């Protein structure tokens, strides 16, 4: 073991310069002494005999001349059974145990173990001595909630090894040695816990595939119009208050995936609390277990140390990749990636680097791209599939999508859910702009109906724009009907009442059924005496369809309302014929 040490030579906010002796590695972790405390920091630049460190804690009280120890290890996450259901800060400090120890407030310099050591797991070996293995191969499994948590050969182990010994089936703690490996000259002990540097993607799979399977969010506007794929990436930019966080919260509840990782990155603590307090009591209808059992929260909110904010998204994606290796579908939701970009900007400023646009560092784009590249579907060596889907909220300054973070993100993601201020002001939730947004992934409904719906939205919007100039009286009745159809589609399908127990989550089956009927409305020729009659018809149809949205699929109510809609449509259809005949 090498022991590099140093002394503090300068302090500027959370950046500390350290004169050192011995080797120092870029991005290695170091601890700064302050009284009995040791504050965690990361090397971010080395020049001559001076290393610049970003400190993950408040630096109040540090002194020039203070002692620094370098660890030789890159900033790493601890991986093992028992991560699900936990709440961590950006450095993977478990927050519940921390509260037990420190009370209401966070206390700097207190670092606890992420993987619980006091719990025994029922280990089932799945490999025999004598087999050849390499990094990522499965040694055995332990049940973690509803999943078979795979205990794997550490991802950091290089080359090929022979299994010399495997622990028998039994109850073992996470730090128990479950296998011994050898390669002739050296030996290696495998435990249930391993460490992995968060800024490096986890490999150990056979191949990466193209994301094609839809990830159902049960939000109509997403699944039907701007779908997300398992293993895909998407972003949600929007001005404040447009609904980014609510959208992510809804997704974290309803998305049809195995594991959800919520990275609350530099935004309000209060928003995490709802998840934190409610998920342990909410049942996941697909599994019958609580939502918390499939969720990990990484919580580095806005008043928590800025440098740890940057670490938090990497910690989150590392945990996501870890569960992906167990052939699970993982969804990572980061709110907000802009805060992480700002953390980069703050540090870049302290390093006095040459600033790019809006003072963001020049490497912003490549850093964002590398992060989203960690999403994907992979085929594991045993043939199983695992995926990491990444959805990032973006908080553009002034709500202007031309700013650097939004632009850098748009270049690398597969879907864009742009939230608009007009729609949120008009309480048209989810306030995703149906004309601006896009997705490269396949929808759950057929192409023709979808094309029709998009066309009506576009044309309806055109008519609306035109009406602003020429007025309703200058608009042809046929055009006016197109406008009403667009508004209808918006009101009963794009908009969704998140707080209604039925409307709040719409299964893909229901979406296909409802969308079929809506498409019929859109396709239908309609005749009306005048615009007032048309408006009245659509007001009533809208009312009835919204009631329909609130009726559980298959319930009597649902069937009854569907019949009523059918009757209303038959009536206008007849009327259309009368008009064209007469």
């Amino acid at each position: 073991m090498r022991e590099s040490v140093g002394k503090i030579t300068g302090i500027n906010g959370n950046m500390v310069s350290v004169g050192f002796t011995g080797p120092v590695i870029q991005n290695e972790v170091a601890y700064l002494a302050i009284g009995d405390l040791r504050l965690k920091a990361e090397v971010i630049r080395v020049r001559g005999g001076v290393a610049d460190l970003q400190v993950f804690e408040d630096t109040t009280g540090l002194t020039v001349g203070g002692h620094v120890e370098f660890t030789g290890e890159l900033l790493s996450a601890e991986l093992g059974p028992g991560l699900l259901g936990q709440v961590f800060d950006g450095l993977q400090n478990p927050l519940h145990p921390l509260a037990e120890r420190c009370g209401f407030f966070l206390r700097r310099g207190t670092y606890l173990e992420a993987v619980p050591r006091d719990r025994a797991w029922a280990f089932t070996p799945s490999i025999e001595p004598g087999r050849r293995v390499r990094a990522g191969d499965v040694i055995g499994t332990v049940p973690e909630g509803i999943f078979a948590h795979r205990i794997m050969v550490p991802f950091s182990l290089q080359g090929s090894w022979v299994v010399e010994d495997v622990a028998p089936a039994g109850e073992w703690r996470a730090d128990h040695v479950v296998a011994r490996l050898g390669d002739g000259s050296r030996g290696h002990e495998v435990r249930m816990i391993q460490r992995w540097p968060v800024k490096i993607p986890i490999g150990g799979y056979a191949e990466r595939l193209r994301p094609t399977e839809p990830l159902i969010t049960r939000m109509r506007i997403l699944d039907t119009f701007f779908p997300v794929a398992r293993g895909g990436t998407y972003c949600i930019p929007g001005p404040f208050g447009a609904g980014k966080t609510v959208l992510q919260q809804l997704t974290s509840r309803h998305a049809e995936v195995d594991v959800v990782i919520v990275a609350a990155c530099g935004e309000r603590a209060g928003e995490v609390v709802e998840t934190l307090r409610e998920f342990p009591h909410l049942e996941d209808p697909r599994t019958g277990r609580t939502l918390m059992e499939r969720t990990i929260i990484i919580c580095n909110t806005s008043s928590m140390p800025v440098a740890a904010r940057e670490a938090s998204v990497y910690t989150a994606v590392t945990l996501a990749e870890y569960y992906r290796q167990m052939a699970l579908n993982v969804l990572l939701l980061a709110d907000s990636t802009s805060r992480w970009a700002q953390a980069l900007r703050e540090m870049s400023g302290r390093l006095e680097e040459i600033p790019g646009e809006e003072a963001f560092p020049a490497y912003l784009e490549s850093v964002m791209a590398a992060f989203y590249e960690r999403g994907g579907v992979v085929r594991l060596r045993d043939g199983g599939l695992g995926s990491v889907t990444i959805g990032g909220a973006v908080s553009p300054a002034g709500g202007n999508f031309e700013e650097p973070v939004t632009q850098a993100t748009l270049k690398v993601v597969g879907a864009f859910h742009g939230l608009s201020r007009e729609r949120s002001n008009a309480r048209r939730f989810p306030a995703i702009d149906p004309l601006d947004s896009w997705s490269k992934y396949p929808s759950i409904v057929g192409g023709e109906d979808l094309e029709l719906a998009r066309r009506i939205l576009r044309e309806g919007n055109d008519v609306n724009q035109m009406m602003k100039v020429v007025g309703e009286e200058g608009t042809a009745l046929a055009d006016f009907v197109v406008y009403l159809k667009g508004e209808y589609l918006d009101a009963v399908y794009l908009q969704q009442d998140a707080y209604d127990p039925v409307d709040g989550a719409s299964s893909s089956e229901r979406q296909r059924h409802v969308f079929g009927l809506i498409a019929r409305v859109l396709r239908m020729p309609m005749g009306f005496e005048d615009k007032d009659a048309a408006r009245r018809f659509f007001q009533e149809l809208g009312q009835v369809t919204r009631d329909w949205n609130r009726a559980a699929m298959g319930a009597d109510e649902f069937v009854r309302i569907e019949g009523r809609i059918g009757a209303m449509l038959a009536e206008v259809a007849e009327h259309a014929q009368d008009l064209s005949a007469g």
Partner: protein
Amino acid sequence: MRRIYRRVERIAGNVIAVRASGVGYRELAEVVSARGRSLAQVIRQEGDVVSLQVFAGSRGISTEAQVRFLGHPMRTAYSGSLLGRVFTGSGEPRDGRPAIDENPTEIGGPSVNPSRRVIPRRMIRTGIPMIDVFNTLVESQKLPIFSVAGEPYNPLLARIALQAEVDVIVLGGMGLKHDDYLFFRDTLDEAGALARSILFVHTAADPVVECLMVPDISLAVAERFALDGRRVLVLLTDMTNFSDALKEVAITMEQIPSNRGYPGDLYSQLAARYEKAVDFEGAGSITILAVTTMPGDDVTHPVPDNTGYITEGQFYLRGGRIEPFGSLSRLKQLVNGETRGDHRTIMNSMIQIYASFRETQEKMAMGFRMSDWDRKLLRYGGRFESEMMGLDVNIPLEGALDRGWAILADCFEPAETGIPSRLIERFWPRGGRAGPGPAGG
């Protein structure tokens, strides 16, 4: 150990530098010069050169000023005897009464562990329908009033403070006009609320660095009261002045500005303060109401923009009224489900129809013919603005909801409102005209 240095190496802006050793980062020092005494805080260290920000500014400081390090960061006193008192941003009495130094408490202390936070559940009643009905204020919320200069934001702040049922009011004034300071003091006094209030006031005439201390010192005191079980309301006015002080200091320190001269960490700086709003499980709470004036009425200006991303909503004050569009209480849904069964319905439908009214107004301004529907909307809009939006309206939530139904029933047929049928059946006033109020609850 007292460490005294007598040679100032550099003076620029409000920052001085001395050569010293064994100094802690953010430690406080006392600077004594011919002009008097001032506190100063360590903001940067490079080798043995220590840069300090001088609270009273550097004007009149000589290179031979005496700098004495105090061995601790900025602190404030905490005791019940703070109540009814007025202090400066650095905690000195401003009311001519003796200083208080009990229970020194560090300001800008650590964050609350998010796992110890609870979901806020208590509504704060203000008697203002635009708040109570449409954007309910919730205990432990952090919420700014976005306003252009000239709007009555300070009277609004004072009115909410007096109507809210809280135990302690802490006012943090930043760059206040002296008149406004006196307005707050007198208003609190007349309402008999001064005895449960503490004022930390920085006026436009005071040194800019003291402005920076106001939120931290106010919130540190509030936090102690809250931990002792009190429900505390913190009023911060005007946070744009605070941000401008940050900008001034950042520029003196030659930091690279990110946006219109503001430092790149403006978001984090503001968040560190606003996130002090909290409900301590088993103890008291801190609710923060702030004022953010918008230069040029521009909500995309960095100060309101960053603020909007941090706070739990905002009230737009424009033309003497709280605007329904853009105004938002992000916590309202945590409480408006438990008030009265029709609360959410009135909230949603009245605003949606009001949005249509605004469109019709635009059409009318362009000279288009008004349809029957347009005429209905115009009638509705007029009544909504005078009977719900005016700041002179002061009625309890229940009265405002009844009034909402009355206006809807006077102006529309049920189906025109877009309200779900089952709610119409429950709440629509019988006979189509305003009755004594809905039967359901």
